[in-house]
């Protein structure tokens, strides 16, 4: 396989494309207990996350908005990983995902809930795309910490 094709296949693994096409967690919950909204100035992508709570636990989570394969797949994986978890557990998962994606931590120490997200490993080789993968996780974190939040990635790196 050509070098470029190998990297492409590593970035867009089949699992990712399946999550991207899945509608399972798309949409908006009304009413909801948690809401987060974020914009990436790099690509202008917007994401809105709404979730309901059952006591201390996140019950359902939906995400809405248009995005690239990476951000949509990452959002779908996140939804799957966090539903049914307590808020402190969710925040720990967000932290662990950041360790993996941004700080490039070792994969063998990742919590079991994040097993599927390992398919995003190829993204780490493309720094411009790491923000795509992180967007929904950051939006959810802020939404949980503040009840409802606007998340704004800093820096307009797209240019011209």
């Amino acid at each position, binding site marked *: 396989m050509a070098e*470029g094709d190998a990297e*492409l296949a590593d970035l867009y693994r089949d699992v990712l494309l399946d999550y991207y096409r899945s509608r399972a967690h798309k949409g908006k919950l009304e009413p909801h207990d948690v809401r987060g909204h974020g914009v990436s100035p790099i690509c202008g*992508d*917007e994401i809105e996350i709404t979730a309901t709570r059952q006591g201390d636990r996140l019950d359902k989570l939906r995400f809405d908005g248009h*995005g690239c394969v990476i951000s949509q797949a990452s959002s779908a994986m996140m939804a799957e990983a966090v539903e049914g978890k307590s808020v402190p557990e969710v925040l720990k998962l967000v932290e662990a995902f950041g360790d993996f994606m941004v700080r490039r931590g070792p994969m063998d120490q990742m919590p079991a809930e994040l097993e599927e997200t390992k398919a995003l490993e190829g993204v780490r080789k*493309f720094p411009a*795309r790491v923000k795509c993968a992180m967007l929904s996780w950051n939006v959810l974190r802020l939404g949980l910490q503040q009840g409802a939040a606007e998340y704004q990635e800093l820096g*307009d790196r797209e240019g*011209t």
Partner: protein
Amino acid sequence: MGFDPKAIRKDFPILNRKIRGKALVYLDNAATSQKPSSVIDLEKSFYETNNANIHRGVHLLSQESTEMMDLSREKVAKFIGAASAHEIVFTRNATEALNLVAHSWGRKFLKEGDEIVLTEMEHHSNLVPWQLAAKAKGATLKFIPVTPEGTIELEAARGLIGPKTKLVAFTAMSNALGTINPVPELLAMAKKHGATTLVDASQWTPHLKTDVAAWDCDFLVFSSHKMLGPTGIGVLWGKRKLLESMDPFMGGGDMIQEVWLDRSTWNEVPYKFEAGTPNIAGAIAFGAAVDYLNKLGMEAVRRHELELTEAALRVVEAEGQIALYGPRDPQHRGGVISFNVADIHPHDVGQVFDSEGIAIRAGHHCCQPLMRKLKIGGTARASFYVYNTLEDVSAFGRGLRKVKDFFKVPAEAKHG
């Protein structure tokens, strides 16, 4: 000399690079251009043999540096049809030139109730500085609307530009869509009402012949890096009387005539606007870029890009499931193809192109209001320059097909 892109390519060392195992196909020229050896070599030889600070030295190197920079200023003046090199202010880039005008002209001459007319397709660089100036001075911004085809509504412009209009500032060519705007018509409307005029020529001057005398605008801005020159150098051209009437932009060395502890007087233009040690090497190497374009001839450059654009439009047409933005008529479009493939995100499109060694840009192209108006998140954009060939256009077509294959775009899918 005939226009021979194959020969031209030999002058650009970076085109020998392999990207992910493939020959580089560089189609991101609207963002920045590549540099010919003559530009790279001049910058290097300047540092190796002439380098000194300008103006203040009596020693030989300082004289040489000063003369080389002056010569470059003259070349730039001639290249755009300016009356004198005194009208060429060197800045860091077009953005700084726009901020200079918004600050030095805007803060001095704008009054409460004045109207500034822009278009909806401006680069953030020709929008945000005016938002700041308008806020500071109580002026209002008005926007000439953009049609779904990505052209401006001239009739609406006629209604917007009136006695209250103090400034009309617009891009000659859209970086996001490639639209070539009706510059003379817009300038005529502005002049009828005595408004000051500014043309953002960032995308024009690299690709089409610029003649400020023929346009008779008041200000014109562009960047060296989009026209074969180094980064870190840009141009504000202004009519001399107007430049002289403006307050300085930044204070410091070089921009003064005399300094006391409590006050200063200003140097003549353009130096009044060039505080501190400028990008000497960059300004000098920019002169070599101008030489290179002169050697090719701007008419020939435009003809070449028109040929590539027509070919690329045919590729898009034949391919299907591509949403194309901007005017269909290549006469009204620069060498820019802005598009989306079915409902695939522009970043994913760009990533697949990258795997083929093809560099295109994806996103909002610093034109968020325009994207909002066209109801799209962003586009993928391929843009051509002198060293691109019909083979590059074929590579572009190959990229489109690979995107569709890779993401399994169904044949009947509708684009959004």
